[in-house]
């Protein structure tokens, strides 16, 4: 007799993030595949929009709170909530509870919700114990540590460990991998010239690394870096780390070639 799942599969709500939804659906499907490979039952609530960071980081706490309520209501029933972004997962996990401080109805609810939230790659490695993926890609890649994932959620070794398990893939370290790319959400719109000066340093380090592909775990950073590399006429391709880990690299890279 074949028992498909000896233990019940955990129900995971995929918070796909507004940027992935709009700009890079493939990251969403790669996330689903990786989560299913890790033994999870994945659901995608249709009432999700955005985590609220644009409002929260612009000082608009009222709208940030309304959006937080919307996310919590849509996702609190799952065993885990997973997002393919350190920035959005950080918002849900580290910042939502503070929005409800002192509110007897919501505070505990937000804290219970926050405890279930994980960024995708760290969830696979740390919670599901995944130490290898069944993917292959002949490429030399380098990895940029997105700030929120690195400093709010401690994501550093997990993506590197899983990437090293990809057959044929060579991972070279990026100098200043832990330095911001200059995206900063609304920052890049408010201070475009400063943002540009910062991303120029990042693309210079990427070129120096000799890698043919730049990976990271946050689409905001990736669009910023890809947009700059394309404008500079670089040959370096840009992808979300989940695409490579899921072996779903038949799509054109972010921003094309």
């Amino acid at each position, binding site marked *: 007799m074949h028992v498909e799942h000896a233990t019940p599969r955990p129900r995971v709500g995929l918070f796909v993030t507004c940027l992935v939804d*709009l700009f890079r659906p493939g990251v*969403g499907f790669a996330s689903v595949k990786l989560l299913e490979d890790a033994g999870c039952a994945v659901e*995608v609530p249709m009432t999700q929009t955005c985590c609220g960071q644009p409002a929260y980081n612009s*000082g608009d*706490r009222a709208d940030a709170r309304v959006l937080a309520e919307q996310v919590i209501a849509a996702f609190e029933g799952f065993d885990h909530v997973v997002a393919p972004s350190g920035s959005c997962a950080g918002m849900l996990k580290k910042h939502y509870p503070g929005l409800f401080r002192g509110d007897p109805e919501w505070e505990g609810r937000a804290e219970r919700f926050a405890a279930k939230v994980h960024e995708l790659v760290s969830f696979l490695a740390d919670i599901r114990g995944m130490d290898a993926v069944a993917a292959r890609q002949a490429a030399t890649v380098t990895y940029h540590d997105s700030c929120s994932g690195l400093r709010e959620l401690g994501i550093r070794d997990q993506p590197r460990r899983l990437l090293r398990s990809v057959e044929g893939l060579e991972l070279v370290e990026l100098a200043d991998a832990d330095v911001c790319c200059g995206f900063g959400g609304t920052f890049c719109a408010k201070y475009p010239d400063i943002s540009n000066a910062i991303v120029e340093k990042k693309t210079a380090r990427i070129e120096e690394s000799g890698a043919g592909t730049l990976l990271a775990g946050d689409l905001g950073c990736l669009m910023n870096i890809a947009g700059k590399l*394309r404008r500079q006429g670089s040959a370096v391709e840009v992808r979300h780390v989940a695409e490579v880990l899921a072996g779903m690299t038949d799509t054109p890279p972010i921003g094309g070639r």
Partner: protein
Amino acid sequence: MLITSPSFKDNARRALGDDKLQQALGNVQTGFIEKRRKAVDGLPEFEALRDSARDIKNHTLAHLDLYLEAYEAKVKAAGGHVHWAATAEDARKIVLDICRAAGARTVTKGKSMVSEEIGLNEHLEANGIRPVETDLGEYIIQLRGEHPSHIIAPAVHLTRDQVEADFRRVHDHLAPGRELSEPQSILGEARRVLRPAYFEADVGITGANFLIAETGTSVIVTNEGNGDLTQTLGKVHVVVASIEKVVPTLEDLSQILRLLARSATGQEMSVYTTLSTGPRRPGDPDGPGEYHVVLLDNGRSAMLGTEYQDMLRCIRCAACMNHCPVYQAIGGHAYGWVYPGPMGAVLTPSLIGVDKAGHLPNASTFCGRCEAVCPVRIPLPKMMRHWREREFERGLNPPVQRYGLKAWAFVARRPRLYRRAAAIAAWGLATLGGTKRRLASLPLAGGWTRHRDLPAPEKSTFLQQWQARTRP
């Protein structure tokens, strides 16, 4: 000093186009970050020390009135004078009165950001007294009529050849062909030029890194020895210090000192750590005849009990600005007042008003590196966000931003409407992106596309594709 924080954007644009400045800013990275990392890696208890320093400062701030009064009593007991200055103007007046009473024509100065904050040099000059900066970096910018661009390396915005040119221009009594190609030779020349000023000066003015409540001691931490000469050779020593510099005991000092130099320059200790308690006593070989402390509030006590209180833990190591990508890109002058970088982005709005300094807490990517290196664990990004909240409440941010945000939030709060809007946007942008899969320009996104392409989406959103796939 003139506040140019409201024109932060123009300041930043100028800074980005200034090749000399950009060259000089490269030194911040090599000069500070690597050295700090090595020093921190070499001290296993560094993280525990950060906790301890945070707790010491929190405890002190919770009882600031008691510790300041205890400090004052000890200074008086040692024969010194304590002057309370509620505002910058009060502090300027107090210092000028002390200088006048001493008949001073020349005063030497050790490095002090508080003296910058109160505009002391300009005030003394306007009243016929010549202030001479004795810290090398401060001396250089005084020659140039500039203000510090960094709180511990005031001339970090300059290259060596700019300094050489300034020295040749100002020190025109020295041999024109002299060697000035090394930092050491520049330092040597500054020493020779400054030496007589110490003996001419009637008053020496220093800041204080710390004030010790249990002993009434002021502490300065320096590398050049100029602070010691400034405070021992004048007839009068004036310490200008802000109220949050007080710590309870010498034991507390010794803990925090283990963090300060490591965080600042990567040194285990600075070359000089000088403790001063009162004026010269009978039998002392040297020291000033009078010892004054000017305690400056200037808005700090109003920060107590607010969401900005944690900022008063700051020990002015500058690690936050050294590690800030924005500071590294534009330097300190662009921030437009005394305190630049992340610590300035939080402190400046408290001291000069968020209406003037509103850009500063906004000009951050929230990358969090400042908080990660802060020796007293100040949550700098969180406090910048609080300033953004104050600005939003008061309607200080630009209307385009406010209405754009409100319109976006209106849609984001309505998932069905949002899905439809996202689907239209995806289709539109994908169509514009064409086979290249990117856009070189886009109306209303000029800030982005001026410098980079916009990667194009696919023709439908993830949620559309997911629904199509899962719907029976």
